[in-house]
């Protein structure tokens, strides 16, 4: 259960959502995408984009190994389903899927079964699936958890490229060191409340109570 959380994430912001285990950061993320019903309160996703939801979740874990062989291309294509088109993917949509796979560096693996990917490749495939849904706000749940050094570097480079490309992001993470320079804002939760909300500090873990007001941009991404 989260308490009295009020926050607004603006277009173009890259936000780190920090906190210890059980602090409520994953719960907050799941509430944002309606995976957990709200007992009270409101999640408002503002317009300013074409897609239905405008918001895509990159989960920490891939779906359990598919019983039927499923290629990376087919997994990423699931990102197309937020559009109300039927009859399979059009040529344009297939091109979008291929471009998303290419942008995360997996074009060689697009015909592989997704279950054969390494942890880092799988994380990048899930990011490609989110990109295909044409969301402009990406919610990433522990994108670096359980990855080896090389994979961590490849995912961090990808996230920085996405920031450059103008994506807004909320990244749930345990710690910031690997993601240095990615974020424009840090929100720290403790005991299911916001403890800190402001610019990233060099030594964030000094637990300062200083609160920075954010300039409201004219194009809001999400408000809770």
């Amino acid at each position, binding site marked *: 259960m989260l308490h009295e959380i009020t926050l607004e994430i603006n277009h173009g912001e890259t936000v780190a959502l920090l906190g210890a285990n059980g602090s409520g950061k994953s719960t907050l993320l799941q509430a944002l*995408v*309606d*995976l957990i019903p709200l007992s009270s309160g409101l999640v408002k996703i503002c317009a300013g984009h074409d897609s*239905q*939801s405008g918001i*895509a*979740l990159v*989960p920490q874990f891939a*779906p359990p190994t*598919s*019983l*039927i*062989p*499923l*290629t990376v*291309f*087919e*997994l990423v*294509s*699931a*990102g*197309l*389903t*937020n559009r109300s088109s*039927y*009859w*399979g*993917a059009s040529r344009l949509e297939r091109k979008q899927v291929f471009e998303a796979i290419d942008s995360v560096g997996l074009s060689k693996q697009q*015909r592989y*079964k997704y279950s054969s990917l390494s942890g880092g490749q799988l994380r990048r495939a899930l990011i490609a*699936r989110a990109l295909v*849904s044409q969301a402009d706000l990406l919610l990433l749940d522990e994108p670096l958890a359980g990855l080896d050094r090389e994979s961590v570097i490849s995912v961090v480079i990808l996230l920085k490229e996405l920031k450059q490309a103008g994506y807004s992001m909320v990244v749930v993470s345990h710690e910031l060191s690997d993601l240095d320079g990615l974020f424009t804002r840090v929100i720290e939760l403790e005991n299911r409340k916001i403890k800190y909300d402001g610019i990233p500090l060099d030594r964030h873990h000094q637990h300062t109570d200083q609160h920075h007001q954010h300039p409201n941009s004219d194009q809001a991404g999400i408000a809770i």
Partner: protein
Amino acid sequence: MSVLDFLDYQFMQFALLAASIVGLTAPLVGIFLVQRRLALLGDGIGHIALTGIGIAVLTGQAPIWGALVAALCGAILVEYLRAKSKIAGDTALSIIFYGGIAGGVLLTSIRTGSAGSTLSSYLFGSLTTVSQSDLIAVVLLGLGIAFTVAMFGRQLLAVSVDPEHAHVQGLRLNFLSGLIATLSAVTVTVGMRAVGLLLVSAIMIIPVVSAQQFAKSFRQTAIAGSIIGWVSAIIGLVFSYYIDVPPGSSIVLTALGIFTIIAILVFILNLIQRKKVTDGFA
């Protein structure tokens, strides 16, 4: 006299067409059941369709429509029990199983005195009972299945592989789960005459698990499964004509034979490949 003599008989032409349609379409639905670990759903629905046949026999209606209505009700009931109640999926299925078969036997016996001979052709299929009106129903329902799978395929795949992601994408999970159950019910009805209600579920599942052994993608599994289903239906039906057994048994055993051959071939190919790799290291 030739081995293709059976093609001269109209009942065989009807039976071949009905079997072809179920062979081609059943795996297209079965692939979603396998992926969702609901391989026995078709079996449960087949049992409840028996009650529909019982009602149709009792009221003098066409059995295929009685079976379809009962199968659809059963499918929706199973989905509802799975989604809304505390009853586990397999328990919900077993309730449908037993209730369906008991209802079918009871209702048919009231009308005919003995359920055995009447029900047997519905349980295991029958070559001679595919009437012209049955065939029209089978063709229409088969086209309906193919149309629906082609239209909603991407959504059905998304909800079968990763329901959580599908929900975030804004897909209606209850609707799509209901659609898979509905497609299963229609498939059971389509297969009722040629394969029989007790065995039709096998033709939804076995071709898919056969294809899954060598296919490299979901799409390939669907296409190969459909072809294997069709080949099994045709070969099995011809066998049933020559050795005079219910077609359901020979069709399902043919499908199992194909499954075994593919399993052995894949095993041998893997051995050869592994040997090549180890030779490469040597």
